[in-house]
């Protein structure tokens, strides 16, 4: 089978940006095409991953806007929304378009513009994904994190500090990422003494609100071989997407991310890989607790033991299985629609040996992108050709 290859990748600086969404998407889109040396009019399908441009800035139709701004007409274009997992869902859509033969060259650009809103407003836009029986109580994504973290610590006897160590690790990785929003080391004490946001979680357990964009360019491996040298592209060897309940409290076990289990199972099977084969991973650490839950759900560690890996340094950059070498959403920032795309950008750089000071030894990488509180998940396995 002709696999789907990634021949170009880009990401803008994440953080507080002056540009609005159209400008951010255009920057990442242009840099991505430049990275591969492909002209805009060669793009057959153009996908834009974005959760809420209408709600955040009153701009809809962003996929068509990007096609025009880049000169990619008459490409087929579509906006992909799966809330925080829009980026992963965009990878899935782009992969499908090439794997099916519908598109020879597919550009995916994810982005979000958020920082012009207050934290409370941005939190409310994101919380609008909840069920009415949740929303009326003022339930937010951070409060799901607090509820789940308390249950996790209670059930598995994990120390509160283990969550803080995720933040410390990811901030340390972010120091070496020029695209990251926060390039600032934080120590355990700072995390443990930061203000409570959703008890037992504190400010440093949460990712920031961010503007930014990232892009990926897809074609079949046979086309990639004609266009770029073999050490300049990666392949998607497996991909899976799945959903869990909309109402979060209806899950049998609040500490299990069912859609991460399902989507990773599908991805491993397609790639003919096992969790042990993965050398580097980007997990959706919107909240520190999510890194534990996903590291267990995708099979790296037994249920209830993800916290031990952090304690033992397994997931550090020089550990056995580095997780979030990019700094994760935690320090890199989380422009909703861009995050899943930026995860794959990091894996792409790692596999190509272009991750600079963050470089680890890796032939197989995994990215897990989560929407809602695990409501929608896409897992992607990428490899050297």
């Amino acid at each position: 089978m002709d696999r789907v290859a990634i021949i170009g990748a880009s990401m803008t600086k994440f953080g507080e940006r002056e540009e609005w969404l159209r400008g951010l998407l255009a920057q990442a889109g242009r840099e991505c095409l430049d990275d591969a040396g492909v002209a805009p009019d060669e793009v057959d399908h153009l996908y834009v991953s974005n959760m809420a441009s209408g709600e955040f800035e009153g701009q809809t139709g962003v996929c068509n806007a990007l096609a025009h701004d880049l000169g990619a007409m008459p490409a087929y274009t579509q906006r992909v929304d799966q809330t925080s997992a829009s980026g992963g869902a965009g990878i899935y859509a782009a992969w499908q378009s090439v794997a099916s033969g519908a598109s020879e060259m597919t550009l995916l650009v994810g982005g979000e513009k958020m920082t012009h809103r207050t934290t409370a407003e941005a939190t409310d836009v994101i919380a609008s994904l909840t069920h009415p029986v949740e929303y009326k109580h003022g339930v937010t994504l951070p409060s799901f994190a607090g509820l789940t973290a308390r249950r996790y610590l209670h059930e598995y006897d994990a120390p509160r500090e283990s969550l803080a160590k995720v933040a410390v690790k990811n901030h340390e990785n972010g120091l070496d990422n020029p695209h990251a929003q926060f390039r600032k080391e934080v120590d355990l004490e700072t995390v443990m003494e930061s203000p409570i946001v959703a008890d037992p979680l504190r400010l440093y357990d949460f990712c920031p609100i961010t503007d930014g964009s990232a892009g990926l360019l897809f074609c079949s491996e046979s086309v990639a071989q004609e266009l770029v040298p073999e050490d300049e592209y990666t392949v998607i060897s497996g991909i899976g997407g799945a959903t869990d309940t909309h109402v979060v409290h209806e899950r049998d076990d609040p500490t299990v991310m069912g859609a991460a289990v399902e989507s990773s199972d599908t991805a491993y099977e397609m790639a003919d890989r096992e969790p042990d084969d993965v050398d580097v991973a980007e997990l959706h650490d919107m909240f520190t607790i999510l890194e534990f839950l996903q590291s267990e759900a995708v099979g790296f560690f037994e249920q209830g033991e993800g916290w031990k890996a952090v304690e033992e340094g397994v997931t550090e950059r020089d550990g056995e299985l580095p997780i979030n070498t990019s700094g994760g959403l935690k320090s890199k920032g989380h422009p909703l629609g861009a995050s899943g795309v930026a995860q794959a950008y990091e894996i792409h750089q790692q596999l190509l040996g272009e991750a600079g000071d963050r470089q680890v030894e890796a032939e197989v990488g995994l990215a897990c992108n989560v929407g809602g509180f695990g409501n929608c998940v896409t897992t992607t396995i990428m490899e050297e050709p």
Partner: protein
Amino acid sequence: MTLNAYRCPNGHVTYPGHELCPECGEEQTEEIDLSDEIGEVVTWTTNTAPPPGVRQPNSLAIVEFEVEGTSVRAIGQLAEDSEVEIGDEVRPVYAEELRNPDAGIRERESQEWDGYRFESA
């Protein structure tokens, strides 16, 4: 406004109700009033950075009820002054307006805004 769970002919119970039973796909035909029941706290949190129109801080709990041998959970605010721990017993107490329906992003007319908080039993 009620605190009603819904049951299908195969005995699956959910709160809230759904178009079809998420477990078996059959229609949910029976309503079970939870508002007079005692439930047990599964977990709780206090959110100090709530969205617009929500009380600050906003304490929330996931509570588990036993309905004829089947458990069903609900999420809700904790009543003022109710400090709870995992495993504590709580009872639902009615509140006319849980948050200001005009302050947030969701349309007032699209959903209900009254409901039940939980207080220590």
